[in-house]
C-alpha cells in the first residue's frame, strides 16, 4: 500500500517531535513493503502538494501534536481547505502525540478526529494516541531513540492492515491515567527533579529568567 502522511505539527520539520515520530513510524511501515510520502504543514509551500496528495490517494494518515485539547490551528486551516471526497475508498487515520503522559489527555481531541473522516467523505482507520513525548527533542539521542522505538512496531502493524487495530492501541497507547504510585512520585520527589531538569534545559537554550517569571505583572507575586 502507499500511504500519504500529513504532519499537522506547527514546529518546523527539523525541530519537530512529530517529524521524529513519523520517521520511526515509516521505518516500520516500509519494513512490510509499503511506500509513503510525507508532507509537513509547518511549511506552507507544501500545502498545495499535500492537498493534491490527499485528493489523489486512498490511505491518509495525519500525524499531529495535541494543541490546546485539539488539533493545531494550522492543521485546522488545512482541513478547512479540503473538499469532501465524492467517491468511496479513502480511509483517514490519525496519530496523535502529546507531552503529558496520560493517553486520557487526548480523548477530547480524539472525539473531534472521529468526526472528520465522515465530514471529508472518507472512511475511518482509527486514532492512535501516545503521550509523554515532550522530552523527545530535549533528552538527547539515546533517550529519544528509546522513546521512538515503539513507533517502529506500531508503523509495521499499521502497515499490515492500513488501520490502527484495537490490539495495537491496547498494547502501545498507554497509560490512560498514571497509577497512584506514579502520581505520588510526580507530585513528590520527581517534581524537584523535573524542575531541576527544566531549568537546566532552559539555561542551555539561553534562558536568563525564572521559568515561572510573570513578565506582565508590575511586581512579581
Amino acid at each position: 500500500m502507499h500511504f500519504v502522511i500529513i504532519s499537522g505539527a506547527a514546529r518546523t520539520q527539523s525541530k519537530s517531535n512529530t517529524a521524529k515520530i513519523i520517521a520511526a513510524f515509516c521505518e516500520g511501515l516500509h519494513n512490510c513493503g509499503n511506500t509513503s510520502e510525507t508532507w509537513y504543514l509547518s511549511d506552507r509551500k507544501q500545502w498545495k502538494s499535500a492537498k493534491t496528495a490527499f485528493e489523489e490517494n486512498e490511505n491518509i494518515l495525519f500525524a499531529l501534536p495535541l494543541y490546546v485539547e485539539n488539533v493545531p490551528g494550522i492543521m485546522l486551516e488545512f482541513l478547512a481547505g479540503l473538499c469532501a471526497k465524492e467517491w468511496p475508498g479513502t480511509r483517514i487515520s490519525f496519530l496523535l502525540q502529546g507531552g503529558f503522559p496520560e493517553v486520557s489527555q487526548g480523548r477530547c481531541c480524539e472525539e473531534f478526529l472521529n468526526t472528520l473522516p465522515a465530514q471529508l467523505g472518507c472512511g475511518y482507520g482509527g486514532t492512535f494516541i501516545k503521550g509523554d513525548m515532550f522530552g523527545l527533542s530535549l533528552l538527547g539521542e539515546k533517550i529519544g531513540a528509546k522513546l521512538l522505538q515503539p513507533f517502529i512496531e506500531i508503523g509495521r502493524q499499521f502497515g499490515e492492515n492500513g488501520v490502527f487495530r484495537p490490539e495495537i492501541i491496547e498494547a502501545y497507547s498507554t497509560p490512560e491515567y498514571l497509577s497512584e504510585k506514579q502520581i505520588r512520585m510526580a507530585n513528590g520527589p520527581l517534581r524537584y527533579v523535573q524542575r531541576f531538569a527544566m531549568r537546566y534545559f532552559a539555561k542551555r537554550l539561553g534562558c536568563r529568567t525564572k521559568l515561572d517569571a510573570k513578565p506582565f505583572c508590575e511586581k512579581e507575586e
Partner: protein
Amino acid sequence: MRLLIINTLPKEHLLAEKAICRLEEKTAECKTFYIEDMKITPCIGCNACWLKTPGICAVKDDYEQILKAYLQYDVTVFISATALGFVDYKMKHVIDRILPMATMYTRIENGQTRHVPRYNKEFRFGLLYAGKGNQDYLTQWMNRFCLNFHGISLGAFPFEAWEEVCACIS
C-alpha cells in the same frame, strides 16, 4: 465586571455586532479585539514562551496585547465562526497562542497532569459561535481548555442563545 471580547468574525457580521453591543451594555467596562484588524499569526510551537523567554511569545505580532488583556479583564468571551463542527482555524490560531499563560512546570491535579499556571488568576472563558457548531462538543472542549489553564468555562453557545452568555457574565 470587566469584559474582554475577542472576535474573529468580520466587523460586518450583524449577529456578532449585536451580541457585542448587548454584552457591552451588561458590563461596567468592555474591550473588544477585532482580529481582522490585527496581525495574529499561528503558534510555531517553538516552546520559547516556556523555556527561553518564560511568559513571552517569540512571535512578534499583535498578540501580546491580548495576552496582557487576559490578565486585566475578569471574563473573556470568544466570538468565532465554526467549521467541521468546531471553532474555525482563525479562532484556534488565537487560542493556540495562549500557551505563555502556563509555565513549563507540571503537577498532577485530580489524577491528570496539568501545567502550573504562570499567574495567580482564575480565568473565565466563554464562547459564542456562528454557524453549525457541535454545541455539546464545543462545551466539552471549552471545559477541557479551561481545566488546563486553571480557569472556569462559561460554556459554548450559538448566537441564538447569546442571552445565556449574558446571564453567565452578570
